[in-house]
């Protein structure tokens, strides 16, 4: 239970953060204020539902401020937003420590409460008088019709009615909708409430905030005063009490306007107002319909636990496999009817697969939102002006990829802010605008998603990197490296270019971890930089982790899948050429290409004659050939983990089940090549020792 609360609270707080940031940029944005208020209200409700009074009260005070901002009683200023951020951070902490057992939390808590109190008082002193004038007592009509199932989630509608009634003088008229087959646990009562109050319509609506989806709520201001003591009014509304028919608004308005017409205050102008109101009152029903439609639209997304999604994905994967089996069987037994069925199943399976995979994808925006805040805090702590722009937040990626990506991206952004973007003064002397710009964008290209982090800072000086790498012994001074190769050195473990270590970045662990994390996701990272112009880091990632397009090949009757994304070309070579090849190079298309004989590598017998197939794959910047016995064709592989028994065989990134039920092993060619080069090194060592 507590976990559900925390999970939901974190989500709400994330939303709150986004809205606050948006509000900071555009302080007049009414929708943001509304959103902030709504989120706070939900958070308060949740907290009180879970019996956490400390948080409830805290959020309540915060909410009060935003209510005042919303109604225009209070000015929004930087101080207030900064305070809100502090409060937000505090709530993030105390949702885990709701009883304030930690002393620091407790101190913080009271300090913030004081601060909030200060804001409220300040606002109160200005607005008390205004309030009295602007919000005179009016008569409000509220129709509250809970749905039959309202008891199911533990709501007691009577509490809501009495809360409402306490807002001023009121008249509550209950009605019953009795029907034949009423279940005993269904709600069949609805209420009409007339209140004389100075509260705004929003405040009244807030009473129902938790039942909005479970009830019809209609609120209308009546253009009459002091009607509750009016005998005619009481007669009219009580006439139908406990009955199924609500108050006839037209009749009521007529009656009351007649009455008020007789009063001296009434004039022609008022008449007009009433006229229009009558027609509006008649439209109550159509209004109700509209609100219902809106509600139905609102409930189009549901929460599903990721376990269920995983299960669904597993089932779909199995279906894909089974379908491949059916296709295989159909190809062997050609029957027209069977072929039609098989084709249909194939189509459906593909659609089902795409839909199911689509469900596990989430927009990258969720992650970008988190960075907004981080960039704001870091740049202000570093005293730098930074404009942070995110683009392509709607790009969707597998949830697990996004989770794994958060830390590396955070690290890169920190680096850019700390080492990339210069201080305002430095920027001006370089002829740049004083404020730096940091762009985080993502976009699709083919089956890949690209994420770029672009800054317009001082860039990376190739010479500095080179000198540093030499002094650290990573490269030799005689090594002749291209600029690109030198830039790639920043991903080397233990390489930190920052002259000064700050708490933001520069501990020398990081970029290598970043690279490794991204490689684990079967992606890669590229760095481009120009001195004084800026640095661009590009991360290339597969759309999903669990399905790849591959080439199905065999080596000694065992099926292997090589990801299509790494394959550049296939060749046919003679085994004789390889049999006595001294330096293991083949000439392909006029280029010398190193190769690995998989048969040899995997310990099968090596063929001395005949032809064999060679697949050229990308390995970093070079191309390496890998020989296989046979190429069967393209295959869409659903990747399954091999399990811990085969942890050591990391050159096999997983297994995929073929149509005939047998297993093909998915090769990670980069690891195969690593393994080979390591073995060669070991052999050389032995040879040297002997």
């Amino acid at each position, binding site marked *: 239970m507590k976990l559900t609360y925390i999970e939901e609270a974190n989500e709400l707080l994330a939303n709150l953060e986004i809205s606050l940031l948006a509000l900071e940029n555009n302080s007049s944005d009414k929708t943001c204020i509304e959103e902030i208020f709504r989120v706070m209200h939900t958070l308060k409700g949740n907290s009180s539902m879970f019996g956490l009074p400390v948080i409830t009260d805290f959020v309540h005070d915060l909410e009060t401020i935003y209510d005042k901002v919303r109604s225009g009683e209070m000015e929004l200023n930087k101080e207030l937003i900064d305070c809100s951020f502090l409060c937000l951070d505090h709530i993030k902490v105390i949702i885990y420590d709701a009883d304030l057992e930690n002393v620091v939390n407790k101190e913080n808590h009271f300090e913030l409460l004081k601060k909030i109190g200060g804001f409220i008082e300040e606002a109160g002193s200005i607005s008390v008088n205004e309030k009295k004038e602007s919000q005179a007592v009016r008569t409000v009509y509220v129709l509250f019709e809970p749905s039959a199932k309202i008891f199911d989630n533990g709501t007691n509608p009577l509490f809501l009615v009495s809360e409402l009634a306490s807002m001023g003088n009121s008249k509550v008229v209950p009605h019953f909708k009795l029907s034949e087959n009423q279940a005993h646990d269904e709600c069949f009562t609805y209420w009409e409430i007339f209140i004389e109050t100075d509260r705004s319509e929003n405040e009244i609506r807030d009473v129902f905030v938790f039942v909005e989806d479970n009830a019809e709520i209609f609120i209308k201001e009546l253009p009459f005063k002091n009607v509750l003591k009016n005998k005619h009014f009481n007669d009219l509304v009580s006439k139908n009490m406990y009955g199924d028919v609500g108050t006839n608004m037209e009749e009521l308005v007529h009656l009351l306007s007649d009455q008020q017409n007789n009063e001296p205050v009434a004039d022609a102008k008022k008449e007009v107002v009433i006229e229009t109101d009558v027609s509006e009152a008649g439209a109550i029903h159509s209004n109700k319909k509209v609100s219902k439609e809106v509600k139905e639209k609102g409930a189009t997304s549901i929460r599903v636990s990721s376990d269920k999604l995983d299960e669904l994905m597993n089932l779909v994967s199995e279906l894909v496999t089974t379908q491949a089996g059916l296709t295989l069987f159909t190809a062997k037994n050609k029957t027209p009817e069977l072929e039609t069925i098989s084709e249909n199943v194939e189509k459906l399976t593909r659609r089902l697969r795409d839909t199911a995979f689509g469900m596990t994808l989430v927009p990258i925006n969720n992650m970008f939102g988190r960075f907004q805040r981080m960039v704001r805090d870091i740049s202000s702590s570093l005293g730098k002006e930074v404009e942070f722009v995110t683009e392509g937040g709607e790009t969707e990626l597998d949830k697990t990829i996004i989770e794994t990506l958060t830390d590396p991206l955070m690290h890169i952004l920190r680096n850019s802010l700390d080492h990339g973007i210069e201080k305002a003064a430095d920027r001006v002397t370089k002829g740049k605008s004083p404020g730096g710009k940091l762009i985080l964008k993502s976009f699709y290209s083919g089956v890949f998603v690209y994420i770029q982090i672009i800054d317009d800072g001082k860039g990376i000086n190739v010479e500095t990197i080179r000198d540093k790498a030499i002094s650290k012994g990573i490269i030799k001074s005689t090594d002749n490296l291209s600029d690109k190769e030198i830039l790639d050195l920043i991903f080397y473990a233990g390489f930190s270019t920052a002259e000064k270590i700050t708490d933001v970045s520069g501990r020398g662990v990081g970029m290598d971890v970043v690279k490794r994390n991204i490689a684990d996701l079967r992606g890669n990272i590229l760095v481009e930089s120009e001195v004084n112009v800026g640095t661009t880091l590009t991360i290339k990632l597969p759309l999903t982790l669990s399905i790849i397009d591959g080439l199905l090949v065999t080596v000694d009757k065992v099926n292997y899948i090589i990801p299509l994304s790494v394959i550049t070309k296939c060749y046919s070579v003679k085994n004789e050429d390889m049999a006595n090849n001294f330096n293991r190079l083949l000439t392909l298309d006029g280029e010398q290409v190193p190769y690995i004989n998989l048969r040899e590598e995997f310990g099968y017998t090596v063929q001395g004659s005949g032809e064999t197939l060679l697949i050229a794959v990308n390995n970093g910047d070079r191309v390496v050939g890998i020989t296989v016995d046979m190429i069967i064709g393209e295959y869409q592989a659903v990747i399954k983990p091999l399990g811990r028994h085969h942890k050591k065989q990391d050159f096999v990134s997983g297994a995929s089940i073929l149509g005939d039920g*047998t297993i093909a092993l998915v090769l990670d060619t980069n690891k195969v090549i690593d393994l080979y080069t390591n073995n060669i090194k070991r052999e050389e060592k032995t040879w040297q020792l002997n």
Partner: protein
Amino acid sequence: MAVKLTKEEKTGVTTSFLSFKLAEEHFAIEVKKIMEILEVPRITKVPQTPDFLKGVVNLRGGVLPVIDTRTKFGMPQVDFTVNTCILVLSIDINDETITVGALVDSVSEVFEMEEKHIQPSPTIGARYRSEFIKGMINEKDQFMMLLDIDKVFSAADIETILETHNEIEEAVAE
């Protein structure tokens, strides 16, 4: 006397066992550890694995690693017969439950036995590591070894075997 009684009660629990054969030896495993018994499908050998890791098979859409129990116990390998089958076992390692397949020559029967009838192994040095054997069972005048499968088929064990294997290789290399 009273103490003895409670002890009696404790060991009076009846457990089901499955017996199987490897070469001419009889073994037993608790039935609760066995999820199912499979015919041998086509096994895909993963390259560069120790010999006792026979490969992987498709278990209803999942990947099941298969261990050659004969090799694991140092017995010679034989060709599969109609009786060869795979016991799908669920084993616990470090609070994690994983599924592995164990190749055996043939399964014999399921029988019930009170736990008190399990005798300690009297061996003074077996071909199999003694920690693999929980005890001896005498069922219908046939002695069989009760295996502690969590230990026999644990990946941790496999990892250490692999590491020592590699270490030896490296030592040789240097």
